[in-house]
């Protein structure tokens, strides 16, 4: 047999696919749509690494180059400070700049350096600020919008970002001085657990897509069989008809590739519109890795031919019709188990061998192992369905119709469900990994968000200004309560002792009794009281002696540094600082975590004991309890903070904090699983509809002699449910087994064996959805139109 014969027959089949009348075209279109969806997903997956890499590149290119230390102002230098603010759950990143010369380097994405008091904004931020939704944010960014940041200054089209020229930036409140942008930011390597997660997830998400493609190229099999019989009648031999059949699938697959490329091109254009996994990207960044793209483009058509030839191996095409081998060949289980065993064998040597701190693991061995185990499980399903339905007995009519259908052709149903097996097995295994690893990646911040929800810190000129700042938070809309203290330091007066470079010091906080009680367990407190706060070494705080060498009841302390550094501002070097005597009646008290979770130490004083105005370069610290009844209360507080001091630090207090990489991997897998499940459901639905359409005449005839709709509906439900339930059962066993093996690799124990319940729930929901969605077609086909022959 020559290549020419192959090409001729394949081409003939391809021609049948596109010229086969309305039904033929519809079937080809269906195949193309199915393959196209799969190809789109594969191409998107192939583009993901580059997409994420380009974000890193963009982030690096717009960062101020800090590789060179610029000690003094230059014509092209500028001071910079990065400030991000939260706005209704989104992060708005900002870069504050103050040029030092007349030729400051223009920031990436800008045409010119903005004038003082002006800012450049990203298109997404401009849109937000121009909308009523952005009113509150506009108050926080009191700069005139002078232009738009171009692509070079953004990591994604939906990023909310501004670059402002501000006058208040000094060498006291800046991040640094720069003359150029763009430098290499070292990438944080992922640890072994996350690599394992990503690896398993990739296999789990992509195998169902391949299964879906394999199912899609077989759409319309029964009608195709009839057409092939007609070809035999006019002289085609068996091998030729199979090649022609493969050609038909090939046409669908090639058309599917085009559809996939088209959908990918469309999805690429909209990459910036959708934010998935906190990621959106410029179309130019959504480029598949060439090797992976070529693999997809070659594998899909080749697979379509192979799958078609494989599907026809049990079918005898005779000139007068198609005869399925009356006793279908019994499915063998040994090679299916062998695949699974090979997968486990590859994973076994890694058991117990991965450490949390490890950043490089043998991804090929694990990836191939997981893929083999999953594919092995998938191939077990047709055998399992066949073995089980063979033993099922006839019950009510609907059940009998379904069971007999499955007994006659269990492969079609099993194939459609096999995607579910992979997705559900993977989802269960991943859930087990997540549960075991969640505690490793979720850390308690120590913060107590029931006591305060936002903490703000800012420098003040003097104590009075600090007090006034706290007062402004108290008057802000949506604030229920404010824990406010003015903080500074006290020093030991007198000359330095031998070996000392600096005078010993301790922090001092001045606030009312209620505020002070948030830092210490106070036995009692009245205006005029002073306390010496000790941590007893809690949470890595310095030893108590570090405090008591400066601050004890009855000792005098300096309210400024008695031995300032020669580089300190002139104002700090004008003679001996004022002193204050800690009252003899001051009491030692134990520190307790403040709402941010910190154990503080030093001196606590009420305003009557020491006027805040006497403190040196004080800071105002406010911890705010929000009124949950006031919408946007947090935004009002952030606006007040920005108004008081644009460089103020504002922290939202959360009790726990999840590792950012872990969170993003988890989100990514959830998004991927959802898409995969939907694809599997679509595949199942199309297969069911296809089967129904193939049985149009039979359905009409059944209706003719009075079969109830409900009987046929139940029959469809059982036909979907039986393989699905078997698939889910297999997935539960396989998923728990795979999860156990994966956890054993990292020497973790299983936290919860019931993790399969949600996945099973999703599976059952899919059964219901597919059955319900196939009802309209079923009912339409149950009209008598199907009996018409003219």
């Amino acid at each position, binding site marked *: 047999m020559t290549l020419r014969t192959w090409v001729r027959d394949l081409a003939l089949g391809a021609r049948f696919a596109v010229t086969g009348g309305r039904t033929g075209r519809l079937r080809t279109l269906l195949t193309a749509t199915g393959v196209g969806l799969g190809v789109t997903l594969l191409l998107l997956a192939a583009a993901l690494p580059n997409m994420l890499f380009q974000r890193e590149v963009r982030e690096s290119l717009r960062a101020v180059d800090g590789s060179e230390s610029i000690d003094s102002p230059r014509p092209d230098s500028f001071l910079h400070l990065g400030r991000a603010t939260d706005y209704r759950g989104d992060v708005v990143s900002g870069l504050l700049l103050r040029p030092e010369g007349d030729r400051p380097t223009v920031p990436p994405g800008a045409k010119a350096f903005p004038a003082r008091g002006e800012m450049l904004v990203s298109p997404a931020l401009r849109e937000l600020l121009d909308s009523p939704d952005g009113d509150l944010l506009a108050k926080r960014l009191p700069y005139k919008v002078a232009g738009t940041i171009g692509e070079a200054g953004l990591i994604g089209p939906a990023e909310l970002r501004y670059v402002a020229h501000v006058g208040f930036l000094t060498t006291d409140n800046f991040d640094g001085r720069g003359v150029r942008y763009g430098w290499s930011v070292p990438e944080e390597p992922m640890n072994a657990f996350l690599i394992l997660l990503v690896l398993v997830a990739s296999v789990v998400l992509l195998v169902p897509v391949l299964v879906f493609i394999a199912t899609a190229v077989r759409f319309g099999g029964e009608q195709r069989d009839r057409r092939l019989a007609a070809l035999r009648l006019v002289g085609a031999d068996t091998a030729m008809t199979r090649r022609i059949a493969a050609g038909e699938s090939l046409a669908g697959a090639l058309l599917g590739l085009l559809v996939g490329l088209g959908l990918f091109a469309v999805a690429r254009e909209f990459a910036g519109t959708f934010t998935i996994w906190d990621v959106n990207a410029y179309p130019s960044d959504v480029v598949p890795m060439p090797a992976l793209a070529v693999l997809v483009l070659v594998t899909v058509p080749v697979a379509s031919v192979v799958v078609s030839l494989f599907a026809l191996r049990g079918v005898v095409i005779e000139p007068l019709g198609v*005869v*399925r081998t*009356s006793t279908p060949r019994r499915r063998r289980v040994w090679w299916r188990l062998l695949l699974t065993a090979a997968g486990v064998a590859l994973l076994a040597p890694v058991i117990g061998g991965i450490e949390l701190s490890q950043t490089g693991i043998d991804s090929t061995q694990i990836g191939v192992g997981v893929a083999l185990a999953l594919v092995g499980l998938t191939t077990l399903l047709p055998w399992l369905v066949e073995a089980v339905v063979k033993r099922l007995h*006839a019950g009510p*009519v609907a059940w*009998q*119709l379904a069971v*007999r*259908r499955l*007994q*006659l*052709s269990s492969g079609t149903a099993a194939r459609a469900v096999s995607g579910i097996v992979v997705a559900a097995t993977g989802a269960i295994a991943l859930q087990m990994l997540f549960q075991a690893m969640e505690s490793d990646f979720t850390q308690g911040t120590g913060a107590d968000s029931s006591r305060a929800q936002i903490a703000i810190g800012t420098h003040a000129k003097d104590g009075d200004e600090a007090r006034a700042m706290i007062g402004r938070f108290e008057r802000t809309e949506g604030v229920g309560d404010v824990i406010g203290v003015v903080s500074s330091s006290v020093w030991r007066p007198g000359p330095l002792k031998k070996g000392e470079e600096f005078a010993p010091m301790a922090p001092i906080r001045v606030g009312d009794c209620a505020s002070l009680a948030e830092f210490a367990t106070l036995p009692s407190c009245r205006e005029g009281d002073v306390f010496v706060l000790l941590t007893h070494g809690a949470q890595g705080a310095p030893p108590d002696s570090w405090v008591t060498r400066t601050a004890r009841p009855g000792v005098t302390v300096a309210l400024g540094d008695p031995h300032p550094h020669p580089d300190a501002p002139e104002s700090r070097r004008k003679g001996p600082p004022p002193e204050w005597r800690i009252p003899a009646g001051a009491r030692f008290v134990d520190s307790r975590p403040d709402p941010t979770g910190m154990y503080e130490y030093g001196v606590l004083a009420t305003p009557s004991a020491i006027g805040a105005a006497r403190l040196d370069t004080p800071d105002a610290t406010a911890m705010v309890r929000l009124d949950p009844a006031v919408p946007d209360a947090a935004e009002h507080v952030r606006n007040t903070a920005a108004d008081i001091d644009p460089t103020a630090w504002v922290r939202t207090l959360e009790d726990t904090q999840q590792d950012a990489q872990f969170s993003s991997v988890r989100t990514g897998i959830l998004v991927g699983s959802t898409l995969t499940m939907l694809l599997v459901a679509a595949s199942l639905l199309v297969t069911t509809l296809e089967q129904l359409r193939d049985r149009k*005449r*039979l359905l009409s*005839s*059944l*209706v*003719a*002699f*009075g*079969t*109830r709709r409900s*009987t046929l509906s139940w029959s469809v439900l059982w036909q979907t449910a039986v393989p699905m339930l078997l698939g889910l059962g297999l997935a539960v066993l396989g998923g728990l087994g795979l999860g156990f093996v994966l956890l054993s690799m990292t020497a973790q124990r299983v936290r919860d064996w019931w993790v399969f319940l949600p996945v099973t729930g999703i599976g059952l929901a899919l059964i219901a959805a597919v059955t319900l969605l196939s009802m309209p077609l079923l009912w339409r086909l149950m009209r*008598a139109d199907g*009996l*018409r*022959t*003219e």
Partner: protein
Amino acid sequence: MSHAPLLKATGLDKAYGPTPALAGASFALRAGEVVAVMGPSGSGKSTLLHCLAGIVRPDAGTITYDGRELTALSDTARSSLRRTDFGFVFQFGQLVPELTCVENVALPLRLNGEKRKAAEARAVEWLARLEVDDTAAKRPGEISGGQGQRVAVARALVTAPRVIFADEPTGALDSLNGERVMRLLTDASRDTGAAVVLVTHEARVAAYSDREIVVRDGAVRDAEWVA
């Protein structure tokens, strides 16, 4: 044979989109009578049969079955009537491929609520009567076309219907098998007293009937019962 019509249709109109299939067709059938409906391809024979059997609702006209106005019945009621009083034989695509022949024949009984074993026992009897008892355990894909049609006839008769609707029952068979099917169908229906509406375009098939009518352009041209 009673002279009162068991099934009577008057002035039936039916169109599929812009194409008229029936235009004022009238028809009547006495109990136990075998009537052949003849006519060229596309003349409206099958549509008339579908209307008479309550499968399709006509656009206009009335159909009365055993004193009941068929067109006024709900879809559920008509389905129920088809299960209990009517039997069907079509040209092809009527046997459920995944069920065995005996299960196929038992199907209408089971749809009527009969127990499986009892239904299958009666099905086996009918398969024997139609001389295809050796096919009982086989699936339709494993038997010949002639055998399949006889199984279909057994299925049509198993519920002891009062009317059998047969639409080109021999259309896919060779003449020998066709005649065998027709002989068995008409003999069995006469034995059970079932009337038969036989749609065919073959004169040799129509020869098995008691009476012939011709449908042309959607209208019945010569019917003794046309009012």
